[in-house]
Structures are given as C-alpha cells and as structure tokens.
C-alpha cells in the first residue's frame, strides 16, 4: 500500500511536470465540446430546390410558396420544363427537383390523381434522401391544409409522430453524450498506453523491474491516475453540456459516473495491455488507433447498431463501448436508472475485469 502511494506520487509529479499533458487533458475536451456539437449535425437545412410547375394552379402555387418560406429549402427557381431543371441539378446548382404535373389540382378530386415527381441528387446520400422526404412532406402538408380549409377530412389522415426524450429530434443532444464517450476513449485509452511505452523507451522500466515492486501494484499505479483524469474530464464536459447547450442529464449523475468509471477502467486496461505488447510509440499508436476506430465506428456512437448487418451486430456485442453508449444515451436523455440498465452495467464490469486482468498479467518483469 505504501509502495502504491509512492508510485502514485511519482506518477502525478511526472504528469504535472510534463509541459504538455495537463494542457491536453483540459484543452482537448473543451475544444471538442465547444466546436463539434455545432458542426456535426444531421439536420439537413437549406436544400436547393428547383420547381417545375406544369399545373400553375392555386394548389401548386401554394406548394411553391411553402417551399420558399421554409428554412429547410432554398428555392432556386421555377423552371418551365423538366429538362432545364435537370440541367441545373447536373450543374450542381440544385439538390432536388419537384415536378408538379399538369391538371394536378383538378385530378386531386378524381379517383385517380396525378403523381407529383421528386428527383434528388444522391451524391450526398444524406442530403438527397432527407431532401426528397422533406419535399414529399411539404406537398402532403399543403394538400392537407387545403383540404382542411375546404372543410374536408382527408381519407388517409397523416399520422402524428411525437418524438419522446428528444422532442425536437435535436441532433446535438444525441451527439453530446457520444462526444463524451469519444473523449473517454481517446484520453483513457491513449494516455496510459503512451505513458507505459514511454517508460520502455526511456529504459526506466528496467530499473523498475529490478525492484521488489510487484506487478499488480505497478499496474495499479499506472492506471489509477488515468481513471481519475477520465472522471475529472467527464465532470468538466458535463458542466459544459449544461451551461453551453442546456443539456442536463435526465438520469442520476451518480449512475453516469458509475458507468463511466467502469468504462474508463476498461479503456485504460486496454491501453496498458497494448503498451505491454509493443516496444515503441509507433506500434502502440497504430494498435490503439485500430481499436479506437472500431470502437467509434461500430459501437453505435455515430450510426445506430440496429441498422448494421446481422453479423456486425453480433460483433458489436464484444465491444465495450457499445454498452457504454447505450447506457449513456439512456441515462442522459431518457432518465433511465441503474436497475433499467443492469445488463449494460454487468457487461461493463466484466469488460473492466477482463481488460485489467489481461493488462496486469501481460506485464512481466522477467522475460
């Protein structure tokens, strides 16, 4: 125990004496929290639209007005024929074309109405698909409004969707817990790995290995500082989320910190284990990047696990961040409790034991 304190004292001295690390640990999370929520948004706005209006009726004019008024669209012009509009699409001038057929208004009353056509540029898949859907929704809404004004009820009334937990589907709220997780992945994965391999490169580990310090104590002394750093950083970014974005956790902060602590143990254990297996910084960095890339892209941080192919979904079950991502979103946005998320907590605990056990066992004083 006394040895552990001596080792910890040395680790903290080195950390605070490093001209670079303490700043990275504070500035990096702040930069991410202040900048990224503004720039990563899946809310598509200002879609450039060209309308080809063959109908020139009250209805078609109403649709065009609605498009022009909407924040989602920028009306780039009303073209006389589809060919001219398509040329603008090809030139990259517009993202989507809405073509209203001749006698559209009159056909609405008939049993067999004319079809509105929407063409969208799919090069940017997200913008194209959302643009097309938004346009269809605008047309639908306009028709519903007109029917309403005439005192009719539409035979197939549009369903009303209410988004629970994130009522405005604010992408930022979805993103901020994910950013917190990414920060913990980066800081608590890379820093312990680089710290340990740094001792290897400096040769100081040789000197440590001929002391009677046992490997569990040594491993603990290497990991504890990064556990603390991870939790301090989490506290910091939670304050930023509250103050800057007005996002306070719905669930209890204690539950969040418990999940985060388990996850931070896991990540630092992984970093320590990877550093044990490598002999220099380059090796450590590349192996860590491999894990971090997979963790960030596959654990539902950015794209939902449910939309992945079956085999990939199976694979995500062995990724520790997957459970943390689920837990964090549920805790932050839904106000879930530890009891609701027991599966995630158990999974994270197992991962933490597994990775840290591996880290300590793979560290050998004698080879």
């Amino acid at each position, binding site marked *: 125990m006394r*040895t552990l304190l001596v080792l910890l004292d040395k680790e903290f001295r*080195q950390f605070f004496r490093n001209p670079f690390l303490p700043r990275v640990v504070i500035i990096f999370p702040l930069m991410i929290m202040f900048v990224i929520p503004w720039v990563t948004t899946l809310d598509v706005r200002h879609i450039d639209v060209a309308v080809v209006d063959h109908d020139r009726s009250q209805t078609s004019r109403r649709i065009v007005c609605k498009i022009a008024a909407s924040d989602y669209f920028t009306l780039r012009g009303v073209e006389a024929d589809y060919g001219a509009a398509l040329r603008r699409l090809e030139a990259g001038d517009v993202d989507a074309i809405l073509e209203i057929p001749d006698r559209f208004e009159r056909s609405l009353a008939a049993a067999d109405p004319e079809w509105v056509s929407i063409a969208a540029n799919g090069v940017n898949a997200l913008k194209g698909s959302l643009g097309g859907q938004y346009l269809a929704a605008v047309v639908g809404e306009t028709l519903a409004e007109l029917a309403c004004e005439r005192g009719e009820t539409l035979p197939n009334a549009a369903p009303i969707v209410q988004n629970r937990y994130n009522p405005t589907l604010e992408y930022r709220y979805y993103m901020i817990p994910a950013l917190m997780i990414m920060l913990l992945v980066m800081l608590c994965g890379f820093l312990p790995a680089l710290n340990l391999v740094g001792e290897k490169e*400096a*040769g*100081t580990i040789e*000197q440590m290995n001929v002391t*009677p310090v046992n490997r569990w104590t040594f491993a603990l002394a290497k990991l504890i500082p990064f556990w603390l750093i991870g939790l301090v950083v989490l506290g910091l970014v939670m304050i930023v989320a509250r103050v800057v974005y007005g996002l306070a956790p719905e669930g209890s902060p204690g539950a969040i910190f418990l999940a985060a602590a388990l996850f931070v143990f896991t990540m630092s254990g992984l970093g320590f284990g990877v550093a044990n297996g490598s002999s220099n910084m380059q090796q450590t960095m590349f192996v860590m990047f491999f894990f971090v890339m997979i963790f960030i892209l596959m654990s539902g941080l950015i794209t939902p696990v449910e939309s992945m192919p079956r085999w990939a979904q199976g694979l995500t079950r062995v990724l520790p961040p997957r459970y943390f991502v689920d837990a964090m979103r549920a805790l932050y946005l839904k106000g879930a409790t530890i009891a609701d998320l027991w599966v995630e907590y158990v999974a994270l605990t197992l991962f933490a034991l597994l990775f840290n056990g591996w880290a300590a066992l793979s560290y050998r*004083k*004698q080879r």
Partner: protein
Amino acid sequence: MTADRAIRVEGLVKRYGTMTAVDGVTFDVRRGELFGLIGPDGAGKTTLFRLLTTLLVPDAGRAEVDGFDIVRDARAIRARVGYMPGRFSLYQDLSVEENLSFFAALFGVGERDNYDLIAPIYRQLEPFRTRRAGKLSGGMKQKLALCCALIHRPSVLFLDEPTTGVDPVSRGEFWEMLARLRGEGISILAATPYMDEARRCDRVALCDSGRLLAVETPEGVVASFDGELYALSGRERYALLAAARAEAGVVACYPFGAEHHLTVDERFDPAHFRQHLAEAGFHDVELRRAEPGIEDVFMKRMHHE
C-alpha cells in the same frame, strides 16, 4: 541457504532467435570481490547482466545470486541486488533527491538509513539536489545512478559499463568509489570495454561472442601472455599496419595508442622484418620489445579462437 559465492554461474545460455548471446558461460564471483567483465561490444555482457538481475530467463544452465536461483527466487534477488544499466535509466523529469527517495521508498528503506554508504558520492551531488536528473552532466548522472543502486545496501552490485561516455577524470573517481564499496563488503560485477579499468578489478573475465576466454586476476592475465610482443611505429600508420601484417612470422598486428602492437611466432626475425619494410618504402620505422597488457592478451586469445 548460506553461499560463499556472491554469484555462481553454470553453463548459462541465452539465445535471441538464431543468435546466441550468452553461450555456456561458467564463472563465479567471491564475496566482497570486484569482478570485471572485459570484452568488446556485442560480447554478451549486457545479456549476462540482464539474466543475473532476473530480467531475462535463461534457455539453459543455471545461476545463483547471493545463494538465490535467478529463475525460482527472482523476487528475493530483486530485493538484494543493485543494478545500474548501461543506459541512464532514472526518471529524467524527477529531481536528484526525488529519484533517490523514490528508489529508497520502493525498497522500503529511508533515504538516511544507508546514507553512510552513499555519502562520499552523494556529497558531490548535493549542490544539484533540486535539479532534474535529465539536466545533469554525464558523470553526475552516473553518480546518481550509483547512489540509487546502492540506497538499499545491496549485497551484490551489477554495473553495466558504468563509465561509458564519462570523462577520464570522472572514470578514475568512479572506480575509486567501487574500490571503497568493496571494502564495505559489497560484491561487484562490473562490465567495461576499457582495458585500463580492468586493472582495477580483483579478477576479470575476458569475454567475446558470448563465451568467456579466461577468468584470471589482471596480473595473471598479463602473465599468461606467452611469446614476444613488439611495438612498431612510423609514418603512414595505416599503410604500415597493412605491410606489417603481410610479413612472415607476424601473428597479429593492431593499432595500440600511437603505435602498433605485433604478436609474433618463432619465424619472426626483427632484422629481417625491418629490412623488408625498408624495401617497401618505410624508412623511419621504429621497432622495440613491449610489455604486454590485458588488451594484448585479449587480442591474442581472440586470434586463437
């Protein structure tokens, strides 16, 4: 377990892939002895140190340090040896006194407990107590490393090329310190590529390519030189070296300080040799009998292998 030997090594072997770094080495170090490992770079000295300090596991053979087996009792050995690796490996971002108290604490001793042992060395470091270890001069780094290796009063001290890269004056001081430690009853195994340092040891082992060529006192090593040794000097040293090597009766010719040393066999005739060199255009050569040193024995033994 009482051991009359500080270190006992029997047929120790360590291989790295196809390369055999330590190839069946056998020797022992008595209690209170200052034992030198002399040999060129790549002779396997560092690997031997890493085996004896329990950092490596041997592929064959066995060894005991202070009566403890290097594989079975690794932990017991770690508590009672001091190791100073060839490369400075203290924490460069900790100060002199922080390094010292850190290592003292790891061995569970107070800095002052064994202060008498390190005092003569540490006194020289005292003015730089608060300086970061990384900012010390080479000689000061070595002294600090020695202090840290001694702070727990080890019974056996391992020093891997402790004076490499240190100026001649500091080197001399360093060896005087080792002699004093030996007086304190600490057994020392020190490696060095410098032949002049070998003379300061009680016994030396000459090693090359993972094997020991001889284990002797420095005087014994010198006395074991049989045959004649000549010193040759003249202008155009490199051409002279090549010409001398081609002469009959010359076994080996190698640069030695400002001269060349020649080991010869019975066919060698000094008069004939001078004449031949003169015919080849070397007019001002000087040839005289020389006293052999450890290096000469080393060169001769290596030649025989």
